[in-house]
């Protein structure tokens, strides 16, 4: 009996018991659907994160101030995941939070020039920023939320800022502590409407500072995963965007002569992860050895990306494993229904054997039936899961990308389930004694 014949037969027996077939498939549909849904969502999320982080520049190494912990005092800084997460969290929260550091703890310009000198082969340029705080731009009834950030001229290149209009903060703006600002196109639209904001005055206020600045440039706002409002899907109206002012101008407001965090852009071709480790231990040994409260830590975008990808993969595997349990349950359902079906069709099996079917042919017939149930269920599950995953991704605001690997895996897996859970019942059918089977009532 040919494979095509077996497949035709399997479909015939499935359509004969539609309700039963549908319910049996449901187990597989839910199992495969859940795995595919999670994989699709996970792939969309990590794809989005990777592209976002690559936008930020994989050559970037962030050097930031970090409170010493008991562990660190004993073992020094390690590169473990917990620490990495902590650093990331610190980055996400922004540097504007109140923390009990003092002037002497900050990363100073002197340290930076030393680093630049020592690692001249690796360092392309160093971008420094200083957060003034969050507040708003106001003009009569018009307002826009913002975070005020003092930056060095290198900041734009290091952070992949994409200008729409005008120019970014330059060396001369920093040297002259000019009261100029670079705003997002979102803020510009709210404050100035369709008119060009270049050269216009804007009134900015934060908790600690207020002043009028001249707009010299507009950049394209990018939804940023570091941005809490983007993650929670906040509306555009309350969106808070960064407003950049010269570092020195910010320094006058905050009184800071140093920075909590600097971005070092490594030269193309240098190993940023290795450089991060080196610069961290160098800076700690040379400048922070006697500082009891603070030290610095450095991490590269590259290693952060790796860590994030690893975290996502682990999470995805963990959730998929749970979803796979429902597949197992589905498989047991298939086995159960095959056993029922074989008992019901005992006489048919006996007749087939009397007509000349070999044990192998009977086995193949029932295995094919189990595989068809699982494969059809699997295909429906893949469609269902992909749609669900894509829907979930779009709900969270990520571009959806179907996971081809997961689809292939799921198809293979559902076939395997059919083979595995179909074998025992099919074998039972194959080994039936034709005399007993023919006599079965």
């Amino acid at each position, binding site marked *: 009996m040919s494979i095509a014949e077996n497949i035709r037969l399997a479909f*015939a*027996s499935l359509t004969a018991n539609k309700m039963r077939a549908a319910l049996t498939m449901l187990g597989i549909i839910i199992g495969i659907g859940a795995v595919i849904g999670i994989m699709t969502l996970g792939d969309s999320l990590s794809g989005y994160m990777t592209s976002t982080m690559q936008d930020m520049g994989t050559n970037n190494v962030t050097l930031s101030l970090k409170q010493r912990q008991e562990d660190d005092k004993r073992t020094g800084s390690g590169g473990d995941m917990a620490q990495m997460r902590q650093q990331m969290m610190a980055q996400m929260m922004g540097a504007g939070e109140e923390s009990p550091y003092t002037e002497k703890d900050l990363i100073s310009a002197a340290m930076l020039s030393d680093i630049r000198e020592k690692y001249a082969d690796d360092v392309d340029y160093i971008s420094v920023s200083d957060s003034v705080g969050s507040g708003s731009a106001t003009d009569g009834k018009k307002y826009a939320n913002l975070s005020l950030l003092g930056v060095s001229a290198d900041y734009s290149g290091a952070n992949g800022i994409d200008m729409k209009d005008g120019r970014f903060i330059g060396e001369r703006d920093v040297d002259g502590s000019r009261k100029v600002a670079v705003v997002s196109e979102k803020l510009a639209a709210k404050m100035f409407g369709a008119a060009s904001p270049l050269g216009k005055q804007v009134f900015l206020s934060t908790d600690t500072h207020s002043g009028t600045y001249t707009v010299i440039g507009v950049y394209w706002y990018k939804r940023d995963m570091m941005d809490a409002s983007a993650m929670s899907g906040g509306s555009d109206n309350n969106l808070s965007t960064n407003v950049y002012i010269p570092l020195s101008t910010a320094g006058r407001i905050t009184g800071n002569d140093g920075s909590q965090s600097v971005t070092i852009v490594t030269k193309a071709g240098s190993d940023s992860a290795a450089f991060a480790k080196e610069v961290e231990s160098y800076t700690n040994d040379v400048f922070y050895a006697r500082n009891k409260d603070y030290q610095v830590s450095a991490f590269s975008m590259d290693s952060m990306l790796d860590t994030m990808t690893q975290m996502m993969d682990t999470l995805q595997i963990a959730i998929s494993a749970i979803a796979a349990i429902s597949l197992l349950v589905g498989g047991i359902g298939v086995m159960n229904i095959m056993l029922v079906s074989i008992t019901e069709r005992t006489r*048919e099996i006996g*007749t087939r054997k*009397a007509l*000349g*079917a070999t044990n192998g*042919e009977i086995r193949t017939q029932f295995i094919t039936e189990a595989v068809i149930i699982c494969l059809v269920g699997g295909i429906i599950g893949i469609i269902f899961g992909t749609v669900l995953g894509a829907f979930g991704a779009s709900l969270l605001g990520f571009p959806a990308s179907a996971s081809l690997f997961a689809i292939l895996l799921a198809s293979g897996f559902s076939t395997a389930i059919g083979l595995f859970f179909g074998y025992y019942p099919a074998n039972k059918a194959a080994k039936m004694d034709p*005399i007993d089977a023919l006599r079965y009532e």
Partner: protein
Amino acid sequence: MQNIIRLKGIAKSYFVGHPNEFRALNGIDIDIKKGEFVSIIGESGSGKSTLMNIIGALDKPTEGQYFLDGLDVGQERDQELSRVRNKKIGFVFQTFNLIPRMNALRNVELPMTYAKLPYQKRTERAKELLRLVGMGDRMTHQPNELSGGQKQRVAIARAVANDPAIILADEPTGALDTNTGHLVMDIFHRLHEDEGKTIVLITHSNELAEETQRIIALRDGEIVSERAGSGKGGRAA
């Protein structure tokens, strides 16, 4: 004339070596010639079902030899017995045993499917056979859309699909009313007389047995009598 079935000292025991060992058949010797129409009669428990299973290659004897069309069936493995059943034996059951959810045509095709005949050939032959048993107008009917007599006619068409050496009919009219039973018997007579088929009929009815050429009576696993019936000789006999 060549013996198509040759049973020599066939015995069948169940639960061998157990205290409840039971001997269903004891020293059966039967020779059936090609083209003969033979009936085996006996009451229930006489061993006729066991004998039918052995002749039908569904079971192996504990002792003795069984030659079917020159092949020593008693020595064959399961795989080979399947082939023997497929090519050499056509079963007709009391309960028809058509496969549900397969129409008459597909049911008749089934033995040819297991014989790996190409689709075109087996469909053609199945149609021809259904016309032969008078079912030409109901080829696409499902078994549950057919009457008992119609089902049995389809089953007979299926039994002769691979042109077997023997047709083995187990109480073929047992589930039918008298008239329909006669119609079915007529088909057997036609297959015997016109097509020269060898037919072994297993029945408990003396009346049916009388229609055949030779009557073998069983009791307690042994042959108690063997006599000629009133059946006409077939073309090949």
